[in-house]
């Protein structure tokens, strides 16, 4: 009788541990169900590995103001439009000199969605058609993926805007935008 109780207890403990380990993963694998769910504590990387192309000028000129979007988020023609229009960058003059423009454009086009090898590039391109988008947050694929996140969530003080990718994708700067690595801050 005592032995049976011990076995039952052990079984219960094993189930509990299995639930903790497998539960979040099982949920995370489900692309549709997972969205809109808010997790405050977890901050784990998914298994996805990607070597993010780096350029100091890109980090300084672009990453000082906003999330350092991976070049693979946009096709080359979009990066051309952005850099050539950098004096009117969503209403702001970025004050890029000719040398900076050349350097940035070479880097961005060389690593653009068509040739990046970044997991989400193909998905973004597939929904593009002939457009030349410049607003990453408005890309059809990105909008679809965030459709279940309500607008007030983006307005939370620690998030502030849709372009603050890193607020909810803590490993986004390393290219990890997997569902399982998302943490939506509560405030």
């Amino acid at each position, binding site marked *: 009788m005592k032995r049976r109780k011990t076995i039952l207890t052990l079984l219960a403990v094993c189930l509990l541990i299995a639930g903790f380990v497998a539960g979040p993963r099982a949920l995370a694998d489900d692309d549709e169900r997972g969205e809109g769910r808010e997790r405050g504590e977890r901050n784990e990387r998914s298994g996805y590995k990607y070597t993010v192309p780096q350029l100091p000028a890109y980090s300084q000129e672009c*990453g*000082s*103001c*906003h*999330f350092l979007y991976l070049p693979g988020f946009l096709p080359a023609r979009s990066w051309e439009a952005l850099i050539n229009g950098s004096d009117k960058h969503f209403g702001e003059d970025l*004050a890029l000199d000719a040398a900076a423009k050349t350097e940035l454009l070479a880097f961005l086009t060389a690593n653009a969605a068509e040739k990046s090898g970044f997991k989400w590039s193909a998905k973004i391109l597939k929904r593009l058609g002939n457009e030349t988008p410049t607003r990453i947050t408005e890309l059809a694929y990105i909008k679809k993926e965030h459709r279940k996140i309500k607008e007030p969530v983006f307005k939370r003080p620690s*998030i*502030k805007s849709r*372009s603050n990718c890193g607020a909810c994708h803590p490993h986004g700067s390393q290219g990890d935008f997997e569902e399982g690595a998302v943490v939506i801050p509560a405030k």
Partner: protein
Amino acid sequence: MIKYGAVMVLAVAAVFFAAGVLYAGVQPNKEMQALMDSYLAAAMKADPGFKGFSAEEGKAFFNAKRMHSANKEERGCTTCHTTNPANKGKTTVGKVIEPMAPSINKERFTDPAKVEKWFKRNCSWVLERECTPKEKGNYITYMLSI
């Protein structure tokens, strides 16, 4: 004689101590000093009666707000940098900005090209024009004084 020597040593120490207390700011490096000198020369050319940069005026400039003609919103340095340059700031889309005060953030105001670049971008964002050499000199003087 020994007594006199001790008094002298104490006096010198006191002078150094007082100087250290009075001078709390950060000294610009050689390159930044050259940039400040060029601002000063330009400011004096524009206004022959110009007396020199003022941290007070720089502070007022830093805290001033202005209505943007196209965006119809009040903008100022403090929109992103907060009213205390020793604090971290945040851009309008939520990216953290390291403190502006060089006493807190040693990298600030050490590279003239970077300083000029950001004046150009941010003066245009706030004032819809470039900043004048006088404004830039006052601004840096204020930052160095913190």
